[in-house]
């Protein structure tokens, strides 16, 4: 046995350090399908508690939609459970190709390649399409999976201040000697809920001959008039060179992701992206479910319209109550608390009163930027939002933060 006591103790110490730093993550077991109303076992072994879920990425409420479930059942029956192979050996079915076509059409791109997850798409794409003579210039708040992808690539990298177009332009000028430049951003930023200025970024990329990469995981299916994503909202459909997105959030919420964009980029991924080459793709049952999601979204904008109305209602309710919010107009509505312990205490109180919403603090967000991130869904009905609002106000009163400014909250609780 190579796992000696000495090795075990090293891990124990490391885990103790994580616990002492207050960043030890504990899972909460959900005993029901993902939805606005869920039953949760927490802490482990306790009896089930019915709570309203205010922190899922289930933006369109499609995770447990009957038509999606039915389609997945049919996919399971007609195409089986697994492929037992990567795509290029014997792991590609007709429905994988069909889903790639549907995604391309929906996003308004040239071509699409599926990945086991968007984490894999982001981890694999840069290494596949860039070399050491190139540069990647990323927004400082991009998702962790993009950071991993950048680390795996041989191209040089640099960053620009979050959504700061002047700083981005300086960086594009600084790297004008590189062969290829790619500007990298999230479409909607997951922690703040703000939207990238894609129209301005497209203009800068055209001016400095750079490609534009957008991770639209928190936008695909509901941002923009017909839910195509951030590029639709910003009026630049067809002008984004590389879009990555996930099927694990609004688009059914199961798993899987993709790279969609210029056909040469997609083909390079097919030839060289390691997560595509060395891992099975999305299981047939999930492919069938995601295809149904695209059918639902292409037939009607009803769900994204309801989500938009719900988000506006929720944001206004919190604003009127006197919470400090991150500005934005997406279903991600962060309630700013600044102090890490306060975010944990409030999250615990909310849970006690039947509202499931998680507190985030450093290192997930910057120091002194602790918050409760709420996420609205088309699966929420007005009664869910009203009950949640009532509980948020009750807890807000307990901690005396309603109507207080950022400075006042920091004076009361510290950073």
């Amino acid at each position, binding site marked *: 046995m190579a796992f000696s006591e000495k090795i075990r103790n090293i891990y124990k110490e490391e885990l103790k350090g994580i616990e002492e730093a207050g960043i030890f993550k504990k899972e909460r077991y959900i005993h029901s399908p993902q939805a606005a109303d869920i039953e949760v076992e927490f802490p482990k072994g306790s009896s089930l508690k019915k709570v309203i879920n205010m922190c899922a990425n289930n933006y369109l409420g499609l995770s447990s939609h009957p038509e999606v479930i039915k389609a997945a059942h049919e996919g399971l029956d007609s195409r089986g459970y697994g492929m037992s192979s990567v795509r290029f050996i014997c792991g590609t079915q007709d429905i994988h190709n069909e889903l790639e076509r549907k995604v391309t059409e929906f996003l308004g791109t040239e071509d699409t390649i599926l990945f086991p997850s968007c984490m894999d798409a982001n981890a694999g794409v840069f290494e596949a399409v860039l070399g050491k003579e190139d540069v990647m210039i990323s927004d400082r708040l991009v998702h962790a999976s993009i950071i991993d992808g*950048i680390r795996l690539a041989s191209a040089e990298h640099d*960053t620009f*201040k979050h959504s700061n177009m002047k700083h981005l332009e300086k960086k594009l000028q600084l790297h004008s000697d590189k062969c290829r430049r790619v500007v990298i951003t999230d479409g909607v930023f997951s922690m703040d809920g703000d939207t990238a200025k894609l129209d301005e970024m497209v203009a800068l990329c055209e001016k400095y001959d750079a490609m534009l990469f957008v991770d639209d995981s928190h936008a695909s299916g509901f941002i923009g008039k017909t839910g195509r994503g951030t590029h639709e909202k910003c009026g630049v459909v067809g002008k984004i060179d590389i879009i990555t997105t996930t099927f694990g959030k609004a688009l059914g919420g199961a798993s899987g992701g993709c790279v969609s964009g210029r056909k040469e980029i997609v083909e390079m991924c097919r030839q060289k992206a390691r997560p595509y080459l060395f891992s099975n793709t999305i299981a047939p049952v999930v492919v069938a479910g995601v295809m149904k999601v695209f059918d639902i979204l292409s037939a009607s904008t009803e769900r994204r319209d309801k989500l938009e109305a719900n988000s506006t209602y929720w944001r206004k309710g919190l604003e009127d109550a006197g919470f400090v919010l991150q500005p934005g107009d997406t279903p991600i509505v962060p309630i700013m608390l600044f102090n890490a312990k306060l975010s944990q205490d409030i999250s615990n109180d909310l849970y006690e009163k039947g509202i499931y919403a998680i507190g985030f603090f450093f290192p997930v967000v910057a120091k002194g930027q602790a918050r409760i991130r709420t996420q609205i869904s088309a699966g929420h009905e007005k009664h869910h939002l009203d009950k949640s609002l009532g509980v948020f106000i009750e807890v807000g009163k307990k901690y005396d933060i309603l109507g207080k400014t950022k400075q006042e909250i920091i004076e009361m609780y510290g950073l």
Partner: protein
Amino acid sequence: MEDMKDIVLEYVIEEYLEDEDEELTYDTPLISGGIVDSFSMVSLKRFVENKYNISIPDDKATPEAFDTVESIVELVKKYIN
């Protein structure tokens, strides 16, 4: 020496601070203080390398070595000499 500190400090303020009125001194913790994330540190490394015509090996360009303007200047001095 003071010059070098001021040059690095000025770069850090311009490159990383959102609000340029924010107070920053030679010994403000940059990385452990959450002002510069370790991923964005690369532009700071490149800046001092280009400015002073040196090359700092990756294993020496640690978050600890880049944590304050003071420690960055100490590191740069080693490679200038």
